[in-house]
Each structure stands twice: as C-alpha cells, then as structure tokens.
C-alpha cells in the first residue's frame, strides 16, 4: 500500500532542506505573527521570524537568498519564547540554527554577523583545546577575530579583582578525546 504522499520535493529549496534536517514543515506556519509579537529582538530584526517563514514558504531562490543574507537570523537569542507560544508548535529556533549554518556554508552570512560568529568560533576553539571554556582566552581571541580590541577593557580588571577571571585556562585531562570529538562532529566537513 502506498502512503499517497508523493508530492514533488523541491530539493533545491531551503524549505525542503530545513524539513530534512530539523523535521519542521514550513507549511505549518499560518502567519499569525505570534512569534514576532513576543520576540524580544523582533524590533531589531530586518526580517522578524514570521517574515523569515513567509519568504521560505515561497520556495523561490531569490527569497531564500534574502533570508540567508538577513541580519535578523543572527539576532535570534534562542530564548524559545516564540516556540513556546506558537499555536502550531513550530520549533522556530531550531530552524534559525539551521538557516545560520546554511548561510555560513553558502558564504551568505550578513556582514554584521561577523562579531557574533567570531564569538561563537572563539568559544568553540577554546573548548576544543582546553575542554572547558577559558573566559580570558575567549575574550582575547574574540577581540582578535572581531578587531574590537578596546571593547570591555574596563570590565576585565574589575572582574579580575572580584576573582571572576582566572588568568590560566582550566585544562581537562582527556584533551585528546576532546580533539577527537570535534574532529568527528564539526570537523567532518
């Protein structure tokens, strides 16, 4: 017996790739706007979440590109307010995660995402080499990557005084295991 679901899959669309990777079906979104209404950063986004979904629903290359190039996708805080309240139970942050990955893969990430990306990369590098987050190293690395050398120069000494900044990294014992872990996940490329 056939399931009867033999629609054409537009494999070249972002919507299809999202469904494959996250299981989220874009068609579930009926554009009620509740996500945008509750999103703490919607007013800063060039495309609020419901607009991102609207564009993806078309399945047209020019709209997919606009989504991938948007700044808004980098502002999502993954606070899950939208998905918690979504009447259609769409896991929006999961989709945002995936779109960001695609934007990077296709070299379409918004220029202003550079800082955010620099932070995340520095974060992961830190744990790849030490196993745990080394905050001083992270901030230094971030500064180099983002070229915001002067950012937070005032905060660090205060934190140090309060005993909140360790100058030496915490190293875990099995650092080779950590390298192995990165190699077999993000490093699979």
């Amino acid at each position, binding site marked *: 017996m056939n399931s009867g679901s033999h629609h054409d899959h537009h494999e070249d669309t972002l919507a299809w790739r999202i469904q494959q990777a996250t299981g989220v079906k874009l068609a579930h979104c009926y554009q009620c706007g509740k996500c945008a209404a509750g999103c703490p950063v919607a007013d800063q986004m060039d495309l609020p979440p419901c607009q991102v979904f609207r564009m993806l629903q078309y399945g047209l290359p020019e709209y997919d590109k606009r989504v991938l190039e948007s700044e808004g996708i980098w502002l999502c805080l993954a606070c*899950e307010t939208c998905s918690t309240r979504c009447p259609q139970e769409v896991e929006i942050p999961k989709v945002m995660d995936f779109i960001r990955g695609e934007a990077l893969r296709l070299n379409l990430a918004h220029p202003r995402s550079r800082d955010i990306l620099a932070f995340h990369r520095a974060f992961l590098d830190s744990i790849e080499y030490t196993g745990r987050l080394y905050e001083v190293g992270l901030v230094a690395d971030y500064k180099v990557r983002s070229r915001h050398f002067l950012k937070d120069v005032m905060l660090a000494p205060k934190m140090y005084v309060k005993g*909140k900044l360790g100058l030496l990294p915490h190293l875990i014992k099995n650092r080779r295991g950590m390298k192995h872990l990165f190699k077999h996940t993000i490093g699979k490329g």
Partner: protein
Amino acid sequence: MRIGYYPGCSLLGSSREFDESARAVLKALGVELVEVPDWNCCGASSAHILNHELSIALPARILALAEQAGISEILAPCAACSNRLLSAQQELEKHPELLPGIEKAIGMPYKGSVKIVNILEVLDRLKVLISVLTTAPFRKKVASYYGCLLVRPPRVVNFDRPEDPQSMDLLLKAVGATPVEWPFKTECCGAAFSVTRTDIVAKLSGKLVQDAVKRGADAIVVACPMCHSNLDLRRAEINEYLQKEYAVPAMFITQVVGLALGLDPKALGLHRHLVPVAFAETAGVQS
C-alpha cells in the same frame, strides 16, 4: 542525599559565586555532591549555532562520564548547562540513529540513564528542611527571575509552568522573602549577546531592572549565570541605556537561601558582585 554535580564553565569563572553558594548551601542541607570526573564544556549557547552534532556530542560526553562514575542523577546549577544536557539527552532518545556517530565522537558508550535536574528542583525537594533551618529570614521584596532556559522549551525541560512559573517564588517565600508580582519572570535578558551585542543586552536587561525596581523589588533573584552576568556585570551599560543609576542587586537563589540559613556572606561569594549587595552584611542579624 548524594547527587552528581556538573558545575559547568561559568561556575568556574565569571559566576564563581554560584558554585560557591550552591556548594555551601547544599553542604549545609546535608547533600553530598559528586562532581563528574574530567567534565568538559556543554557547548552552551555557541555549539548549536554552528553545528548540530557538536551540540549533542559535548553534553553526551558529560552524561556518559557521569554514567561511568555511577551517577544516576546530576545537578547542573547553570540553567544553560542543564538545558543543553536535557536537549541532547532528548535528541538522542528521539533519534537513536544519531547514537553510533555520537558514541564514536565521544569515544565512550552512552546509555542515557542519567536524570538531569536544575538547582530549583533540588532546593524544592529540600524546601521543608530549608524553612526549618532558616535562622535569618530574608525579609526582602524580591523579583524572582527565571529567564528563558529553566522553563523553555517546555517539551524539553518539562519544569514548572512556562509562563509565570512558581517554584522559585515558593522557595523564596519559604525563606521569608516576599516575591513581587511581576510579568517579566521569563523574559529574555539578552543571554549570549553579553559580549557581542551589549546594546541589546542593555535594552532587554534594562527593561527587567527597571520594572523590578518599579514593582518594589529589593533584589532580583536568578538561577542562571548568564542572566546574572547580564544583570550584574553589564549594569554599567544598563544604567547608561536607562540614563539612571539602578543599584538593585542581582543575587543567585543559592545566595539568598544561604543567607537565610545564616551562612557567611563571604562563603556565598556575595563580595564578588559588581553591584554590591548592600544589605548582605546586615541580613544575617535581621529577624
């Protein structure tokens, strides 16, 4: 009571006082903590942005290490850590096909048998004991601030109710505090944008500080290191954004409970805050 313990990176650095106060309070309540040996970072707010598998493998390694150490229940005080651990555990439960790849990456078997709990859940179990042992009731008006990760997404964390949660309020009542009725218990503070988009943090956290004060709170009580650093370390930026000097301190729930139990403010790391807890020294002598 014996329970596994996963402090997470923040509790070793910028939120050291959360670790200190959690250990102090749980010790006072007779809970023995068994730290997960050679634990690693959970990936927190970065791994899932860049790579899905990595975001599962990092927590999976922690849980597998806990399993090897014979830990059946693990406390992750950091809300971000407990959220990531739970997400990874459920993702592996829902998609067993991912398991071989993950086990290969972490170089260990993973069973998924460890139960993950947050600090409020553990304190909630000890609530009766806490109220009995309270020697210095915390007679302050407080804004209990849960943030995002403790209660959302509800299908993952399955803890308290997603809007207007109650567990921290009840705990605070148990130690003599008066929680204010406020609508921003689970609004986002700006989370991981602490370093990169401080402007957004100032705005979102600013809204929280402003409203808490307006509703008469003497302190904002948190259970998440990220929330705490945004409300405390970023207070200068918040005040600049709001064009007003707000001095309301942000305290960890463990610090509040610790004070109520009569523990030494220093042992609770209260001196580490950038926004001073002005009443900390006197809190102990109030009745």
